């Protein structure tokens, strides 16, 4: 028997791989990008210095490089990384990362050297902006992870964020307490999630359809109350307090990352804590093991006495809680309050971040940062009056999303029972 078993394992032979693997194809694309950067960006860039400042402002220490030299140098970096990937087909992750960074820096050198406004990029500011843009995505994608790991598809993240934003602004103003508003935001997300839970788990309605309907529902309902209640009397209903700022001494002085991570508020610290808590809970506790079991093979969980549906209800509600909390970010970060459809697609980007992060909280966190970085870049290029139309720049994160979700991560394995209702027997 043991002999048979061993040979069974050995004989798991892979089929000879085709030459054009995913890595090689990506290598070809990166080579093209590198070539484009080297030639086009190099030719367009001027010899003015492009300056990367370390702090949050354009003053202070930094690196200087002539724009055209930088554009060509970093274009070549991308080109070489692409070529190596194309011909070896190995080190996919690292080489893709290097090539993309090379391409982006090359483009920046060009843009900064020809900018009529400023030749300096404050890296500390970019880092802070990246993280700030990523915060709602982190909460949203964590909501997705919590829900989908238990086997319920959550495309209602957009609606959960929006409901959270609305509840936060409304109750934060009415009660006069920022913290009660935050609590109300979490409850708002939970309420919307409860509808998803009941329809998906109890009535077995297609989960994607319910999710989309809930997004539309949340959009319409909050817009209605905004017009009817909030707008006529903003001071009474839509003037939540500003989030208190909690800088951490010393740490917030660290160049580049300091201001981003350690000069924050409940949302930024909360997002980091939430990632850690969800990760530990999901992989180190009973609840986590059972949640993952229910999302992979609910019948197996059922046969060892786990209440499959109960656990799914719990997780969907938790997801709403987390996403609702994150939604408050939109209306309570500054004093501008709630406005119609203010989430404007972040929920869907969060969904993409969850997939990009392979349904893992830490993966979702880094994916959120990736998308946040594109957001920050768009803002920066706008601020230096880049000749590239701003609409095109705003498209960048979405283009990145398509590439990330469709191409770069390859075939990602969702929880096996994701989206499949569990029916006993």
């Amino acid at each position, binding site marked *: 028997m043991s002999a048979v078993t061993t040979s069974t394992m050995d004989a798991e032979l892979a089929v000879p791989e085709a030459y054009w693997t995913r890595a090689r194809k990506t290598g070809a694309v990166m080579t093209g990008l590198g070539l484009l950067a080297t030639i086009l960006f190099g030719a367009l860039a001027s010899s003015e210095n492009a300056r990367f400042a370390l702090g949050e402002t354009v003053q202070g220490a930094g690196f200087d490089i002539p724009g055209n030299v930088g554009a060509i140098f970093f274009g070549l970096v991308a080109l070489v990384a692409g070529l190596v990937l194309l011909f070896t087909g190995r080190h996919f992750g690292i080489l893709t990362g290097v090539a993309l960074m090379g391409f982006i820096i090359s483009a920046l050198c060009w843009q900064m050297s020809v900018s009529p406004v400023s030749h300096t990029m404050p890296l500390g500011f970019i880092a802070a902006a990246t993280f700030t843009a990523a915060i709602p995505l982190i909460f949203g994608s964590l909501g997705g992870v919590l829900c989908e790991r238990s086997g319920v598809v959550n495309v209602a993240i957009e609606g959960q964020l929006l409901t959270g934003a609305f509840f936060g602004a409304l109750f934060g103003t009415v009660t006069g307490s920022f913290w009660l508003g935050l609590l109300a935001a979490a409850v708002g997300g939970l309420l919307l999630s409860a509808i998803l839970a009941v329809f998906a788990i109890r009535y077995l309605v297609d989960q994607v359809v319910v999710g989309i309907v809930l997004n539309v529902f949340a959009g319409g309902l909050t817009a209605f109350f905004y017009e009817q209640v909030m707008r006529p009397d903003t001071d009474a209903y839509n003037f939540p307090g500003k989030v208190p700022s909690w800088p951490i001494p010393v740490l917030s002085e660290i160049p580049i990352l300091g201001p981003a991570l350690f000069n924050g508020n409940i949302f930024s610290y909360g997002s980091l804590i939430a990632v850690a808590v969800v990760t530990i809970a999901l992989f180190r506790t009973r609840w986590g093991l*059972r949640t993952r079991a229910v999302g992979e093979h609910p019948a197996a969980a059922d046969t060892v*006495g786990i209440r499959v549906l109960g656990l799914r209800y719990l997780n969907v509600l938790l997801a709403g809680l987390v996403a609702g909390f994150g939604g408050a970010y939109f209306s309570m970060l500054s004093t501008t309050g709630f406005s119609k459809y203010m989430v404007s697609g972040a929920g869907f980007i969060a969904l993409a971040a969850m997939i990009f992060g392979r349904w893992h909280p830490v993966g979702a966190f880094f994916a959120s940062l990736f998308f946040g970085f594109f957001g920050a870049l768009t803002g920066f290029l706008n601020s230096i009056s880049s000749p590239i139309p701003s609409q095109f720049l705003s498209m960048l994160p979405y283009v990145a999303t398509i590439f990330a979700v469709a191409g770069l991560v390859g075939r990602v394995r969702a929880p096996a029972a994701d989206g499949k209702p569990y029916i006993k027997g």
Partner: protein
Amino acid sequence: MEPGEIHALLGENGAGKSTLMNVLYGLLQPDEGEILVDGAPVRIKGPGDAIKVGIGMVHQHFMLVPVFSVAENVMLGAEPARGGFIDHAGAVKLVREVSERYGLPLDPNAIIEDLPIGIQQRVEIVKALTREVDLLILDEPTAVLTPQETDELLQVMRGLKAAGKSIVFITHKLREVKAVADRITVIRRGRTVGTADPTAPESELAELMVGRSVVLEVPKDEAAPGAPVLEVSGLVVADDREHRAVDGVDLVVRGGEVLGIAGVQGNGQTELVESIMGLRPSRAGSVHLNGEPITTWHTRDVLRAGVGYVPEDRSVDGLVKEFSIAENLVLDLYRSAPFGGRFSLDLDAIDAQAEQKIAEFDVRTQSAHQPVGALSGGNQQKVIVAREMSRPLQLLIAAQPTRGVDVGSIEFIHSRIVAERDRGAAVLVVSSELDEVVALADRVAVMYRGRVLAIVAPDTPRETLGLLMAGIDPNSSSSTPAGSGAGEQEPRGEGMSHGEAAS
């Protein structure tokens, strides 16, 4: 049930064995009646209750999370925890302890989906044992095992019995029952029809099971093989996970003969058949039909060239369940006369064809317009067979032709397959039931890990076939005439020697 007893529950497919046990285990609720444990009636509302009263179950389809480790699967639902966090080391230790105590070696950190079926089953047994159950229900545990793995399982069952556990052993295989059971209960159509001692003769048990005597042999004359119809050489096919499911198969099927493919499920049979049918691309090698290469043909062209195909999973590939019998009968023919014109279907012709086929193939239904999903498994299968045989066939490929089919329909389908052979068609039968292969085939090819290990005569001793199915070739050193035992070393030739080896 007595303590320390192995009680076999014997019955045909669909007799109600699994349903009964699912009720015991709390997965289904009884409409009437009660369950007594140690003399007291209990109400089992869910598997949790069942475990509490000491009932454990190993399901026919394993209840293991494929991406979890052995330890994670074993502890699931009863996780040892310290301060809210899972005590993983404790779980690993528990698995080691239990597996050693009962002689079931396991690596607690292995991932389930990497393990062979036999080991996965061991994980299921250990999982039940860690829950301190007194009664273990094994639902068709041998259906997925090789004969050697089965022997090993029977040995494990004897060990558990010696340790004082009671076992309910559900099966429809008489040999295993006789080998291990202390008492036998036979179930038919949801009722207990009798109990018997393991010493009772097989034929008596079989009669109890089906209510009449069974003919295990298919009446047929000597085959008269003609020219090669299907020639497969050096075929390599990948499965969905990009593993070599078919790893260089050479086969020849001649007109007027039945070639049976035996083997434990999952050894490449499915992918081989799908590749021949053009449903799955091949990576190397070729398939010829009457000398013409069809390797890259579209399925529709393969069917049109005179190939009939009974797929292994009728509910997924064979039928459109919501469609009527009449519609299902023309799924492959609706484009051509007399059933379809350029723009429309001739409904009268389709109905007429349905009436005729229902009569000819004895499909038990109230009308040709009933949805096919409402029929019993046997009658559904007859619809498929009727459809596939409604065209003049060069080659018939039947995969698991009688899976989940009642005995009456089995006999009927077998006789139709033999009739096709006698008409001169080449027939390729794939079945995981060794009895079926042996009964139907004129030559038996045994597949193991994507290769044809040997092609032998159907009257080869079962022990030899069993060893072959487990990947061990008893004749590998002293080969039988014309090298029948050396399928895998054979050079990519015509594969002619196979043809002569067995007839």
